[in-house]
C-alpha cells in the first residue's frame, strides 16, 4: 500500500519544526518514530500534506534528573526509557512499561512524546503518566506551557495538545521513601497493545496507605483514573482483602470498549484483576 503524496522536511531545530507546523494550517504532522503515523498513512486513513521530521532533534531525546522530577525528552525512544538508569532507579514501573511496548523494532523507533500525542486508547504510557502524576510540557511559537496528565487526555486520539504545539518534555515526580509504583498489563495477543493496563502508585507510612493513584488504559476510549479505588485505599493497610474490596466495581462496563480482544464485561473484570496485580506489586515495592 502506498501513502498519498506528501512533502517531507527534516527540522534542524524545535523552532524550525514549529514554524513549519504553524505555516501549514493543520495539514502538517510531526514525524518522530512514525510507528503509528506511517501505518495510518499507508492505509490511507490519514493524509498530511507535509511531514516534519523531528527525529533528529537530539536535545529532546535526553533523560535528566531535574530536582524532584525525571525530565524525559519527548523524543526519548521506548528503548531508551526502558534502559535509562535514571528511569530504572527513580521510576522502575515506567521502564518496565516501556519494555512491554510492541517489539524491539517498535521500541527502537517509537518515542514517548509521539505515543502521548497520538493518545491511542490502548497505549501503555497514558496509564503511567496518570498514575505517576506527570506533567506534559508543550511548546509552540507562543512559548511553553505545562499541563498535568489529568488534564492532557481528552478523548480517543484527542489531547490538550493544540495543532501548532509539540510535546517537548514529560516530567515525572521521582518516587520518594515509602512510595512504590507498578504497571500490570493484559496485552492484546494480536497487537500487544493493552486490552487493559493498570498503573498504580502508592505511598505507605507505618504500613498504611497515605495516598494511591490508580490509572487504567486500554479499557475505555481514553485512559482514566480510578478515583473511587484510590479513595477506598487511603488510610488503610494494603492487604489482599483491602485491595480486593477496593478494586471491586472499578469500571462500569457500560463505559468501556467492546471489541474482538475483549467484551466490555471482560474488560471490566480485567480492570479488577490488573489493578489488584499492580497494587500488590506497588505496595510490595513501597514497603
Amino acid at each position, binding site marked *: 500500500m502506498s*501513502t498519498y503524496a506528501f512533502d517531507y522536511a527534516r527540522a534542524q531545530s524545535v523552532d524550525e519544526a514549529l514554524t513549519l507546523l504553524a505555516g501549514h494550517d493543520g495539514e502538517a504532522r510531526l514525524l518522530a518514530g512514525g510507528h503509528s503515523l506511517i501505518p495510518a498513512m499507508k492505509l490511507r486513513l490519514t493524509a498530511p500534506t507535509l511531514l516534519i521530521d523531528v527525529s533528529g532533534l537530539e536535545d529532546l531525546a535526553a533523560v535528566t534528573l531535574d530536582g524532584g522530577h525525571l525530565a524525559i525528552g519527548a523524543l526519548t525512544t521506548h528503548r531508551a526509557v526502558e534502559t535509562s538508569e535514571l528511569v530504572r532507579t527513580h521510576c522502575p514501573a515506567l521502564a518496565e512499561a516501556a519494555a512491554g511496548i510492541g517489539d524491539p523494532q517498535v521500541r527502537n523507533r517509537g518515542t514517548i512524546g509521539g505515543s502521548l500525542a497520538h493518545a491511542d486508547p490502548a497505549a501503555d504510557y497514558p496509564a503511567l503518566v496518570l498514575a505517576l502524576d506527570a506533567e506534559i510540557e508543550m511548546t509552540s511559537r507562543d512559548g511553553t506551557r505545562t499541563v498535568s496528565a489529568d488534564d492532557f487526555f481528552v478523548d480517543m486520539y484527542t489531547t490538550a495538545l493544540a495543532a501548532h504545539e509539540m510535546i517537548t518534555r514529560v516530567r515525572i515526580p521521582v518516587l520518594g521513601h515509602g512510595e512504590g509504583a507498578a504497571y500490570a498489563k493484559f496485552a492484546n495477543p*494480536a497487537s500487544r497493545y493493552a486490552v487493559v493496563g493498570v498503573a498504580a502508585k502508592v505511598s505507605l507510612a507505618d504500613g498504611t496507605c497515605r495516598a494511591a493513584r490508580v490509572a487504567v488504559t486500554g479499557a475505555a476510549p481514553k485512559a482514566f483514573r480510578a478515583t473511587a479505588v484510590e479513595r477506598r485505599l487511603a488510610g488503610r493497610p494494603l492487604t489482599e482483602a483491602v485491595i480486593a474490596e477496593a478494586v471491586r466495581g472499578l469500571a462500569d462496563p457500560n463505559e468501556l470498549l*467492546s471489541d474482538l480482544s*475483549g*467484551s466490555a464485561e*471482560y474488560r471490566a473484570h480485567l480492570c479488577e484483576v490488573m489493578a489488584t496485580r499492580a497494587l500488590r506489586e506497588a505496595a510490595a515495592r513501597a514497603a
Partner: protein
Amino acid sequence: MPNFIGSPVKRVEDKRFITGKGRYTDDIVLPGMTYACIVRSEHAHARIKAIDTSAAEAVDGVLAVFTGQDMVDDGILSIPTGWAVGDAMKEPPHYPLAVGKVHHVGDGVAVVIATDKATAQDAAEQVMIEYEPLPAVVDATAALAPDAPIVHDGLDSNLCFDWELGDRDATDRAMAAAHHVTTYELVNQRVVPNAIEPRSAIGHYDPAREELTLYTSSQNPHLIRLLLCAFVWPDLPEHKVRVVSPDVGGGFGSKIFHYPEEVICAWASKKLERPVKWTAARSESFVTDAHGRDHVSTAELGLDAEGNMVALRVKTVANLGAYLSTFAPAVPTYLYGTLLAGQYRTPHIHVNVKGVFTNTVPVDAYRGAGRPEATFLVERVVELAAKELGMDPAELRRKNFIRPDEFPYDTPVALQYDSGNYEGALDKALEMIGYEDFRREQAEARKQGRLLGIGFSSYIEACGIAPSQVVGALGARAGLYESGGIRVHPTGKVEVFTGTHSHGQGHETTFAQIVAHELGIPLENVEVVHGDTSRVPFGMGTYGSRSLAVGGSAIMRALDKVKDKARKIAAHKLEAAEEDVEFVDGTFRVKGTDRTIGFGDVALTAYVPHDYPEGVEPGLDENAFYDPKNFTFPFGTHICTVEVDPDTGVVRILRYVAVDDVGNIINPMIVEGQIHGGIAQGVGQALFEGAVYDETGQPLTGSYMDYTMPRADDLPSFEVGHQVTPCPHNPLGVKGAGEAGTIASTACVVNAVVDALYHRGIRDIPMPLTPERVWRALHAGGDGAAAAAAPAGGNGQA
C-alpha cells in the same frame, strides 16, 4: 565421503535468505515495468450496475483500466477448480475480475495499470462503481437455510455438493447397538494462512517472440501454466508460456491455487505489451488468499462396554467460500473423510459432508488440508469418550489402536494404511512427558486452586500425494506423480531438476544430500533446480507433504538410470564385465581388484566419447517420472501440558512433546524445523487465530492488529522424539513431515485445556480458546455455550 543421508546438514539456501538476498517475485524489476492495482469490492454481495473508468483513465501515468467484461470479451474464461466431487457438484464461474456480481469482500472488479504503484492506487480510487447491495450469507449452516440469500445466480441453493463415504446402514446399526455414545458438536474455525511473503505476479509478454513469461509466488508453476493455458485462456499456447516461481516466502497451501491476479497480469501484459506487476498489500492478502478449515460438524462415537470403538458417524458442513478454489472440493472430502478412522480399529464409519457457498473468501487447502480437521474431530471425541467413560485417555487410545501385525490395514473409509506402530509412539511420548508424575502434580496443584491439564493427540495423515489413478477415480483433474532429472556435467558437477517447489522446505539441501550420497560426490557439487517450467520437466509442485516421498523418489529413479549408464561406461573403460563393476563412494571398481575409475572421469567420458562402449548414447542426463503406489501414512502422538490462569482465562503451554514417525529421515534438522513450525501453526488455531466476519460479510480480522498469529513467546521449547517405521513402497522409505505438526497439535492443546477444566463441568470450549472464552467458561461452567458468546475469533459471524 560423508554419509549425507540422515545428516543434519545446514540448509544451503539459508545464506541467501538470512542475508536478505533471496529473490522473490516482487524483487524482480523488468525494463518498462508497469504496476497493477486491483479495485476490490467492499460489499460481500452486490450487483454491479455500472463501472465508470474515465476518471481513473485520465490520471497522469495510467496506461489502462480493465474490467471483468473486458477480459471476457477478449476470450478469458472462468478459472476452474482442479477437482470434481461427484457429477452433481456445482461449479459456478469464477472470472478473474467479477462480471455482473461481486461475491465477497475483496472480489476484484477492475484493474488499474500505471507506470508506478502509487499512481495505480491513486487512480484506483477514481474508478466509480455503482453497486446494488444484496443480502449476504456468511455462515455455512445458515447458507443451507431455505430462505438464505443465494450466492450465485443460476443456482437454486448454496449447496455445492453433498458427499458421503462409508457404509451408512452398518454404521447406524452399530451405533444403535453401542453401549455408550459420545456426541460432540464442533466448529473448526476459519483461519488465514498468512505466508510472510504476500502473493505477487508479473506478466511479461514478448510481442516479438509471442512468448509469455509469468513470474508468480506459486507452490506449483507447472499447474498454473496448465490451468492458464488449458482452461482460462485457451488462445494462449502452452509451449509459448514459461511460468517461474522464484524464491517463495512460505505458502502453507495458500500458494497452490491459480489466482485471478496471475491471469490479470499475464493478460494485461499482452494487451499493453509491457510487463505488469501486482503484489498484494497485507490487507489484500487477508481478503484474497484462500482461507483454511471452516467446518461445522457433529460427531458421534459409539463404544461397547469394554471401551472398544464400534462406530463413528460424522456430519460436516464445509464452508467453501464464494468460489471453488483449485483444490477446494477435495479438502473437506477425500482429504478429510478418508482420515476419520485415525489410528483406530473402529469398524464402521460413515461421514456426510455438505460443501456450501457463502459470501466469504474462498476456502482451500491450508497446511494439513482436511487431515487437521479430521484429526481434531477424532481426537477430541475420543478424549471426551474417555472422560465420559472414566477411562484414562491414553489407555482408551491404546486399546483401540490398529496393531502392528494388522498392516496393511483397510479402513472403512477407503484407505489402506501400509504400515504403523502406534503404541510405540504413544509409549515414547508418555515416557518423555512423565505421565504419572504429571498426574500427581496436577492433583496437587488443583488443591491449591491451580488449573493444570494434559492433552493427547494420536494422529495419522495420508500424504505423499498421490497415486494418480486413485485420485483420478476420486475426481482429480490432474495426475499427481512427480518428475526428477539428473544432469551430470562433463566435469562431474550435477544439476538436479525437480517438479516440486521449495518455499521453506529446504529442498535445495535435502535433495542435494540424496544425490551427493548416491553418487558419492561433495554436496557443493550438486545444484537443485526448481520453480521454472522452462528448466524443469512437468511436475506437480509441493503440497500434501509430497516432495520427498514423490519428488525424491523420482530423483532416485533418475539416479538409477544415471548409475546404470555410468556403470556401462566405467566397465568399458575398466575392460571388465558390467556385473563385475561395483560403485562405492563415488568410484567404480572391478570387484576384488584395485582397478578403479572415478565418477568424474566417467562423466567426462560420457561427453568426450572417444573410447566408448558400443550402443551407448553419449551424455549423462536422465529424467524420470514417479507415480506413487499409495499414499504414505506418517503418524505419531503429541502430548502437551498447560496451565490456565483462573483470573484471566489465559492458557500457557507448559511442555509440548511430539513423537512423530515420518519414516526415514534425510535431514533431521530440517524435519525438526518442520515439526516445530507445524506445531506452532496448529497451536495458533487452537488458541489464537480465527477469521471473523460480521453478519453482513465484512471481515473484522483484516490485519495483525486483530488477527492473532502465534508468536515465539506464546510457545514452549518443543521436545521432539522420533520413531522410524519406513514407508514400505517408495525407494527412500520416507513419508513426509511438513504437515504432521499442524495436524496433531490443535487437538492436543484443546484436549489439555479441557482436561484442566473438566472437573469444573467444562467439556468443550470453541476455538480459538481466547482468554475471554476460557474465562467465560470458567465463570459460567457447563458446556462452553457461554464461552461461544464471547467475541474474539470464531467461525463466521461475530
